[in-house]
Every structure is written in structure tokens, then in C-alpha cells.
């Protein structure tokens, strides 16, 4: 076992364990922290597989920005209330079915594919090469994704505007 595969399995264990913890925690803040650890582990995995750019972006966007927004909302919720109870069976069933399908596909990919025995060559994609590749071969997809984000941005702006105008109109009427 080389150092790389050792690190890989170590990271895989960390990611799996923290994701399981994130799903099973009742305290939402703890769940978020475990999810952050899981994202951080994935970023390390990306780095190990030779994609430092992807690793950095994963930490900045997922572990940093998005989870902070989650934490932001969750922090204001009172954590220890409500009687703790399990989901009704009706809601568990789809989860179990999808989980089994996912596990089956995972096992098929792991053992059915001939390429799973070969070790991955160690290659590093510099941010420069990565950017060149994406913009030379998939520029249309990049533009479509950025347009999608722009639409989301304008939508958020519109919703915010609507609320401000409404409250301004309501404020004028009351006095």
C-alpha cells in the first residue's frame, strides 16, 4: 500500500464517518459542522487526486460560503425543543429504496468495471491548464451555467425588491 492509497482510504473513512454523523445528528449546528468536515475531506481528496483548483473552490464555496449561510439560519433556531421522534414509516420507505438502489449501483461500478483494478496515474492539473481545458472544450456549458446563476441572482433581487416595496407601502398607510 503506497502513501497515496493510505491517505485516500483515511480521507474516505473521514468523509464517510462525518457524513453519517451529519445525517444522524439531532442538533442542527452539530450536523452542519460534520457536513463541513465532510466537504473539507472531499476537498482534500480532490487535492490528492491532482485537482488543487477544485479543492480550493470546494472549500471556499461549499465549506465556506454555503454552509455558513446554513449555520446563519440554524443558529437562530432554538435547538432543544419538541419531543424527539423518528420519521413515520411512510417517509422512511422511499429513503430506504433509494439507498438500496444507490448501494447496488455503487457495488456494480466498484466490482463490475474492469478499470477498478488499475491504479490512477498521478497527474496534477494546474489552474491554468484546467481553465484552458474548460474554456476550449466546454465553453458553451460554462456560459449556460453562468447565465443560470445570473437568473437566480436577478430572481433574488426581484423578490427582495418586492418585499421592500410592500413594506414601504404598508408603512405609508398605517400612520
Amino acid at each position, binding site marked *: 500500500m503506497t502513501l497515496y492509497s493510505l491517505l485516500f482510504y483515511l480521507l474516505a473513512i473521514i468523509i464517510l464517518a462525518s457524513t453519517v454523523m451529519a445525517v444522524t445528528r439531532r442538533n442542527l449546528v452539530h450536523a452542519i*459542522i460534520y457536513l463541513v468536515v465532510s466537504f473539507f475531506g472531499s476537498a482534500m481528496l480532490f487535492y490528492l487526486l491532482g485537482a488543487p483548483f477544485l479543492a480550493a473552490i470546494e472549500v471556499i464555496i461549499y465549506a*465556506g460560503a454555503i454552509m455558513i449561510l446554513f449555520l446563519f439560519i440554524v443558529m437562530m433556531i432554538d435547538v432543544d425543543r419538541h419531543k424527539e421522534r423518528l420519521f413515520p414509516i411512510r417517509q422512511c420507505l422511499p429513503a430506504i429504496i433509494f439507498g438500496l438502489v444507490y448501494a447496488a449501483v455503487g457495488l456494480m461500478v466498484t466490482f463490475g468495471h474492469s478499470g477498478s483494478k488499475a491504479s490512477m496515474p498521478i497527474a496534477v492539473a494546474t*489552474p491554468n491548464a484546467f481553465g484552458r481545458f474548460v474554456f476550449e472544450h466546454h465553453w458553451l456549458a460554462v456560459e449556460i451555467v453562468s447565465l443560470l446563476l445570473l437568473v437566480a441572482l436577478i430572481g433574488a433581487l426581484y423578490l427582495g425588491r418586492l418585499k421592500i416595496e410592500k413594506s414601504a407601502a404598508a408603512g405609508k398607510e398605517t400612520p
Partner: protein
Amino acid sequence: MWIFGFIALLVKIGLVLGGLLFVAAYLVWVERKLLARLQVRLGPNRAGKFGLLQPIADSIKLLTKEDIVPEAADRVLFLIAPAIVAVTALLMFAVVPFGTELLIAGQVIPLVVSDLNVGLLYVFALSSLGVYGVALGGWASNSKFALLGGIRGAAQMISYELALGLSLVPVVMLARSFSLVEIVNAQADYPFVLVQPVSFIIFFIAAMAESKRIPFDLPEAENELGAGYHMEYSGMRFGLFFLGEYVHMQILGALLAVFFLGGWRGPLLPPVVWLTIKMILAALVMVWIRGTLPRLRYDQLMVIGWKVLIPAALINIVITGAFIVY
């Protein structure tokens, strides 16, 4: 000869961390002295000549104080939150170059702990993780003031992170690299502050907001929140929050030097000295601003971040892009 490289790496890490902690301790002294002068007071003057032993006395006091965990606090998160702040601040220095290569016994030693090709993104990644220390410290204390401080801190830091990131895009465009070593090399002829003064100003303001210093110190606003997110902390855990802040000041000085002032470049004096001078100067300017400006209101803070800095940074990117292409 990997053993040699490994030892060199350990020595470098030791020197960098030692230097950072030493300067952090004396930055507190400099700040207290300078603030005292600005406010026509004397400042620390009992421990040693000019109060020079004050940082040592302070750290002994912090280390020997009782480490109190409030009963209602979330114990584990409460204990690790200060460490997150200090560790992310200390780790950021790993990509800052403090000279060219050094030749010892026929071995070339680059004077940087790690020359990552995504160095700039690494700094951002760590600074976005540092937000967790503030937010969790506030939440885990289970106190209203601390929670308010934590929420303010998280909101402020994610708002200004955008401006911080966007202000550096022109620098990356000019240097054509994310690596801090390459960015310094690209400034061999002239420092980037001459061609990117707008970026420089945006970066400086956003960086001050990131380190939560006085015009932007709403998360710890003493006269409204007691002490904000670190209110319930005592002893060295409180000290770690402060250590994080002062290490952060140095990091900002170093990044300012690397991105805009030519990094370690300078005439006559050795590179490390130049980098230190630029770092300390930036820190002194921050102390000066702290002694001059009042605290912003919350709405003013958000308006400056979202409606002034971010649009200015975006326009700056477009103009820089146009200049590079044509």
C-alpha cells in the same frame, strides 16, 4: 536527500510560526502604546522599560488563568472555536514568500513554506473557514450577546469576502497566476499598486472588515454587546481569539505587500526585512485608523460592502480586462 528538504521545511515552519507569534505579542504592545499616544495617554509603562515586558506579563497572566466553560454552553464547540480562529490565521502564512531561493550546502531552499499553484485561493479558503470560529464561538457560548456578536461576525465576514476576492481578480489577471511566488515575480518592474490603486483600496478596506478591527468591529462592539462573540471566554481561549486577530493583522500586511507592494522586493536591505517593514507599516496604518475613525452602523457596513466595494471591484475587473486585451 529528501531528509534534508524535510528538515529545511520544519525549520522554515518553526521560524515562520515563531516569528508570527513574537510579532503578534509585540503588535499588541505597539497598538496599546500608539493608541495611548493618539488619545493623549501614556499606555503600558510599568512592566520593564517603556512597558516592553508587558506582552510577556500578559501572556503569563492569560496562561495561568482559570479556563471557564459556562454550564449552558455547548462544551466541545465552545472549546474548539478559538482554536479554529487561531489556526486558520496561522496557516495562511504558509504560502507567503519571504525571499527568493537560498543556497545552503549545495541545496536550493525556496524561501516560502509551500508554493501552492492555487496559493491565493488557499488564503481565501482558510479565511472563509475562519468565519466558523467566530460564528461557533458566539453560538456555543449560549448567551444572547455572544450569539448576536457571532451572527454579526458571520454576516460581515461573508459580505466582505466577496469584495476581498473580487478586488484581487485584476492582480491575478496581471500576474497570470494564483501562486503568490509568481505574483511577486510579476512585480519585478513595478509594484501593482501603481497600476491597480482602486484594487488596493478595496482590498485594504475589505481586509480590515475581515479582521474585525475598529471601523468594522460590530461583532465585538463593547458598548452594545459587552464583548460580542468572545464574551464568555476566559484565560488562554480568550487569548487565542486575540492571537488570531493580531496574526490576522500581520497576514493582511503580508498579503497587501505581496499583492500590491512588490512582496519582498526592495533596495539594499535583505528581502525578509523588506517584507517585515511592509507588514509592520500596514499594521501601523490599521492602528492609526483604529485611533481615528468611529464604528460604522450596521446598515452603513452593509451599504459599503454591497453597494460600494463590490460594484467598484466589478467595474475595475472589466476595465483591467479591457486594458489587457487591447
